[in-house]
């Protein structure tokens, strides 16, 4: 007689032990420390913080160590941790023109106030394996000058490139969205009605939605879409943004400005009656400037796409700005060409890699019961089909 397999509990414990052993690897090799990961795998740490929606480089580094370098697994660890944290309130919006920039480039103007600051970028490195790094010891090149870029840039406010275009009215105004409003093209009064200044206005808008506190529902306004994109999977957004460049919902984007730098985060404390700085974060901000020939409701002007990501992650920031712009077709009175990047419900429903990987991988869980039901049905349908065929052949 068959005895059903027992011992799931012991199997799980043994699997976890083996996993821990595999994580550590060869014990003759020194163990990685969390500070080592935080300092030397900083871009991975940034990605985990961004997609994990939690700014904490130490925890992100710990998650990367625990996840054996699987970044999506690390993001998952961070998400599962952050969701248990109490919510005290919301910070004030950050003013990115006050960012202490490590890097700031514009692809639309050769020179501009604040200057072009190349900063620590891979852009012009030759992708040749540096075998010196394989040798133990610190082989990092000595900086040619001791000044780092953060110190070399003017620490005072660096205005955004788009604000120059704004002066001529060549680019749409950046306004806080009124939830639900921009998805009603019929009223035609969506953008550029109240001419709030480009800066400043960010403090006066309606309360943005928060998809970590409310279920995602459609239509989703722009602030909600941007939140979703900011924590969305880098690879998914890269693919979508790339598809817009190749003609699936073209947006004709230029990088008006890309800046990476540190910024203080302030929060109003009711007991004090004023805002205090609660910490400093590293951010990547991208503003794309997009060609736009005008539509029934909007005059010809440049339009905007926006990206803002924790840490240093230009690929994600640029992808986000392109996808943001592609999703704005309705409010700008453009055609829906059926491109995936234009389809808000499609993009937002599938950009979260923790949801995606969970649902994808769950199909390896047991499905005996459903499969059994399918087996019975396919046997029945098959038997009927075979007998019908046999009768037909006999008749012929």
């Amino acid at each position, binding site marked *: 007689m068959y005895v059903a397999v027992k011992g799931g509990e012991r199997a799980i414990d043994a699997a976890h032990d083996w996993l821990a052993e595999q994580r550590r690897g060869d014990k003759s090799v020194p163990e990685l420390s969390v500070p080592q990961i935080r300092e030397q795998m900083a871009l991975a740490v940034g990605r985990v913080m961004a997609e994990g929606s939690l700014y904490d480089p130490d925890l992100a580094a710990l998650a990367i160590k625990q996840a054996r370098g699987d970044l999506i697994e690390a993001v998952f660890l961070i998400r599962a941790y952050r969701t248990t944290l109490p919510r005290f309130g919301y910070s004030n919006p950050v003013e990115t023109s006050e960012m202490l920039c490590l890097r700031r480039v514009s692809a639309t103007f050769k020179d501009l106030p604040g200057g072009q600051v190349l900063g620590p970028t891979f852009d012009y490195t030759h992708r040749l394996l540096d075998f010196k790094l394989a040798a133990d010891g610190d082989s990092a090149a000595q900086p040619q000058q001791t000044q780092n870029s953060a110190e070399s840039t003017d620490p005072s406010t660096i205005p955004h490139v788009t604000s120059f275009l704004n002066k001529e009215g060549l680019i749409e105004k950046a306004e806080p969205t009124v939830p639900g409003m921009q998805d009603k093209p019929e009223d035609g009064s969506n953008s550029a009605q109240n001419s709030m200044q480009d800066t400043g206005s960010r403090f006066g808008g309606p309360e943005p939605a928060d998809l970590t506190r409310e279920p995602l529902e459609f*239509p989703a306004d722009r602030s909600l879409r941007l939140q979703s994109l900011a924590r969305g999977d880098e690879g998914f957004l890269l693919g979508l943004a790339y598809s817009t460049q190749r003609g699936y919902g073209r947006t004709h984007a230029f990088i008006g400005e890309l800046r990476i730098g540190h910024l203080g985060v302030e929060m109003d404390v009711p007991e004090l009656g004023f805002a205090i700085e609660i910490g400093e974060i590293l951010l990547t901000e991208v503003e794309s400037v997009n060609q736009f020939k005008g539509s029934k409701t909007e005059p010809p002007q440049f339009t905007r796409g926006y990206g803002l990501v924790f840490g240093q992650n230009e690929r994600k920031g640029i992808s986000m700005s392109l996808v943001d712009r592609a999703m704005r077709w309705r409010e700008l009175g453009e055609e829906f060409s059926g491109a995936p990047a234009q389809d808000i419900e499609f993009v937002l429903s599938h950009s979260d890699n923790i949801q995606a990987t969970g649902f994808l991988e769950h199909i390896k869980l047991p499905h005996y*019961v*459903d499969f059994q*039901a399918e087996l019975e049905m396919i046997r029945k349908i098959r038997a009927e089909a075979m007998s019908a065929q046999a009768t037909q052949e006999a008749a012929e």
Partner: protein
Amino acid sequence: MSDYNFAYLDEQTKRMIRRAILKGLAIPGYQVPFASREMPMPYGWGTGGVQVTASCLHPQDVLKVIDQGADDTTNAVSIRKFFQRVAGVNVTDQTGKATIIQTRHRIPEEELNEDQILVYQVPIPEPLRFLEPRETETRKMHALEEYGLMHVKLYEDISRHGQIATSYAYPVQVEGRYMMDPSPIPKFDNPKMEMPAIQLFGAGREQRIYALPPYTQVVSLDFEDYPFEASKAQGACAICGATHTYLDEVIIDDEGTREFICSDTDYCAQRVAAQKGEAA
């Protein structure tokens, strides 16, 4: 685990989920959106069910967790351990002794009573999803009770295969109003859904909760000339000899010889114990 609140979720979150559950019970079969949290197990592993269970759990509750009808499947073990760890509740594998039963893909064979809650893990809560991928559309269809698309699908099944070719997650209509996905239980279990216990359905990734109060009318969709049939494998359990239970098929040798065993391991074990008692 003193760092975590009782049953893992913080009280604010539990309150939000309880509100969704109450709304679900008030509108049987209606999918209530809720702000699903990330849980320490992946989406697809039962995060919706776990959140519902966590929000219903009292320290004096007795919890049973099954997957595919069995208490010892790895994921059932993992979820049961999770609640032992974060809530310290008593657990059981006996259906009759549990106050809350979390399940994936089955309804226990033993009839539940009014003091019990059955919590289902739901992957795709929307019965119309594979006919219409857009949530904005399907919500409209539910609002307007526009279920023609499903009937056409069932009709096409019959014209193509001579029968309704859905063997699990077989759609139902609740109290003549909302069309509901019963989660991927085999259609054999559908008739059991009219029961004395409360049934709660949690879909974590899809952020939906729905519910059936006790004794709610649940009708599996069919046609007069093609009535619904709660089918299962023909055969008897190789362990307890039952012919009236849902059976899993197991292959026992290299020649592919097949045998059937009860999918509900507790029910099977109790039958075996009763048989031994009679023999003694």
